[in-house]
């Protein structure tokens, strides 16, 4: 696997992928129940998502958006947000 992190001017994209709010999050529900069992009675609904970090030779939001649409997120069930990490 190519590593480019040694270079000085490496760019990074951070992508947050979450289940659409209209969909039941089974994993989140399980986490909520575990937290409540541990005594965190203030816990209500929990939603679990994914954080993906990508090293890039250069940051282009359009290119990262294309990556999301082609592989990283499924538009039927998920939403995504892109951030450049500086």
């Amino acid at each position, binding site marked *: 696997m190519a590593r480019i992190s040694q270079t000085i001017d490496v760019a990074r994209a951070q992508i947050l992928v979450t*289940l659409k709010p209209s*969909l*039941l999050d*089974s*994993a989140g*529900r399980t986490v909520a129940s575990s937290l409540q069992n541990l005594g965190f009675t203030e816990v209500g609904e929990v939603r679990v998502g994914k954080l993906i970090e990508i090293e890039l030779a250069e940051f282009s939001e359009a290119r990262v958006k294309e990556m999301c649409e082609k*592989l*990283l997120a*499924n538009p*039927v069930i998920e939403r995504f947000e892109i951030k450049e990490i500086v």
Partner: protein
Amino acid sequence: MKIAVLRFPGSNCDQDAFFALTEDMGIDAAYVWHEETSLKGFDGVFVPGGFSYGDYLRCGAMASRSNVMQEVVRFAADGGPVLGACNGFQILCEAGLLPGALLLNEQQKFVCQDVFLKTETRRSPWTSEAADVVRIPIAHGEGRYVVEPEDLKRMEDRAQIAFRYVNASGTVDAESNPNGSVDGIAGILNEAGNVLGLMPHPERATRAILGGTDGKGILKGFELVMAK
């Protein structure tokens, strides 16, 4: 007639599918590795269950972008018969061959049991020979079928719902829905009717000693498409 049984890293129902097709259906089959770029010489495709690519990212996501799946998309567009069971169903949805997606079961557990299915349409070769009420095994953790309401409406209008989970007498009810799928949907067809995806395993129900033979009526679809 020869069926391609696809193999991805992490497939684990490929041998069951090969066995069911060759031993119990009398249909010739061969394994096809995911890196292959041609389906030349094949008349049908079986996308088997398992945990392709370890279910990384999303179930079926990586497998759906593999070389062989790009060929399957072309094959399906030409009207070739394609059947995806369990992870195979997830892969077909991820590949855009079928609408919707599969999520973690609502009940938050892996379900491994026999279920009953109601055959909802007869318009496809995949469903024309299936029993009215099919008894068949399921084994999955992520089988909750979801689809946008407007897409669901369109699917219903076009008779794309193939199977629904029902009780033993053939009635859709909440208790018989093992994973929280919308409207109890267990299997769906593409618009043309040549692609079927379902969470249950027809390849595990092809002889009495395995618990039943109702899977044969579904696998017969490969022959029926060819006979057309």
